[in-house]
């Protein structure tokens, strides 16, 4: 468990490979590397509850890590984030409830 600043710039304070995202007032943490090819989702475009890979435009759900469109078909790992008052707590390695599980080549729904 790591305690983080509550700044919207939180992801810059984070250690890769697990960037956090601040979008529409919510915090999310996902693995940084796209499940398709080697690219940093931390450099991607965030809109609503989606992040788009900056290289080939695969989209992932910030909530569940699911791949939303090709060329990615495998999810990326999520990490639970909790807001406690003005503090944000990250639980690296602990998947978000409802997140798509990694392994067995699971394909995003």
């Amino acid at each position, binding site marked *: 468990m790591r305690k983080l600043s509550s700044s919207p710039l939180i992801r810059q304070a984070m250690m890769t490979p697990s960037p956090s995202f601040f979008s529409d007032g919510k915090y999310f943490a996902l693995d940084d590397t796209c499940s398709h090819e080697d690219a940093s989702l931390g450099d991607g*475009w965030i809109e609503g509850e989606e992040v788009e890979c*900056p290289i080939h435009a695969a989209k992932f759900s910030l909530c569940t890590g699911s791949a939303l469109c*090709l*060329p990615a*078909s495998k999810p990326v790992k999520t990490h639970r984030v909790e807001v406690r008052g003005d503090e944000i707590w990250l639980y690296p390695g602990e998947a978000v409830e409802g997140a798509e599980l990694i392994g067995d*080549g699971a*394909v995003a729904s």
Partner: protein
Amino acid sequence: MSPAESLPEAVLIVGGGLAGFTVAQELRKRGYDGTVTIVDPEGLPYDRPPLSKEYLDGSVPASNLPFVEESWFEKNSVDLVVDRVAGINPDDGIVTLESGALWTADVIVFAAGGRARPLPVPGGDLPGVIQLRTKADADGLRELLVPGRRLVVIGGGLIGAEVASTASKAGADVTLIDPVKLPGAMAMGQTIALYLHQLHEAHGVRVIDKPTTAIHRQGEEWMVTIDEGPLRGGSEVTADGVLVAIGIVPDVSLAVAAGLDINNGVMVDDSQRTSHPRVYAVGDVARGRAPDGTPLDRHEHWQSAMQSGQTAAAAIMGQELPVHPAPWMWSDRYGHHVEAVGSMAQGRLVVRARDGKPWVSFLLDDDNRVLGAAAIDGGIAIRAAQRMIDHGTVVDPAQIADPAVNLKKLAR
């Protein structure tokens, strides 16, 4: 949404490339529970962009090419038939396979893609002249990508340029031939296209901007004849292999025989439906129309193929058609990632430079709305430009040219 009983019971997809596979994937994502069948002689659907890059140089193995693992087809109840379609009878919904098998379907999706355009010169169709459409083509081409082997690439478009980059990095002796002085200018604008084109020679690729007039074979060697103009006549380039990469022709033969409306592609409406109500066409083979009925250019790029598949799936289910962003493409060469969005054909060019090199080119209309953009290693700039195009944002040319200005903020 239409009531379930009005949905077709069976959808058969002819071709398992990106567009055809996307139809199947999208139908299941949208909850379609009828029969879905993909017929493709190559089997497990796979992604083709790596064939000129990461798969060609061996850094991405064949096992990484499929869009999904084989188990996906069972999990999603999608049948994959490894065969070639021999004929389509749209009126009766019957598809005949080369093996002789007959399939019936309520909806047929035509996703046959394109074939490599043959070079219209003597010897252009000789056996052994290389084309790059399939994994097997890439496997054959890879044998030439070793130090000292001489490769001639005819065509300096995306595939030709990417192969020249991959081959020269592997140490092959590469000659790139294209009579167009600046390939890529229509897709990426003059400034970015020029910067990229100059990378060929900087990486040891010999560039010849003359037309090819003939290809001959002498034993193991290939001779490519170049027209050097009226004063100098012809010259020859000797090679161990010749790749012809001058674009594609839509593979419409089955659609012609099926009586569909054809015009350099299978004509489709906004829902990807062809002139026959039972048949949809998606991907490189399909050609849409502008609102006034004029045929549009076929946008032979990866994302358009996927989006056409998404649209067809929505239409088959009687659902609202998805709205797609401005057309986008990418290319990778000489260690640079290049992207373009919208139209780079005509408008006022504004260049955003970094370290004295072009970084992002914008094309603006008279009202300073963004028509298109191209960037070298500038994915976020292109995503910003895509939103600006989609929203009709009026920009300040001085601002977008300033590398210190955050384009993401301007696009919000």
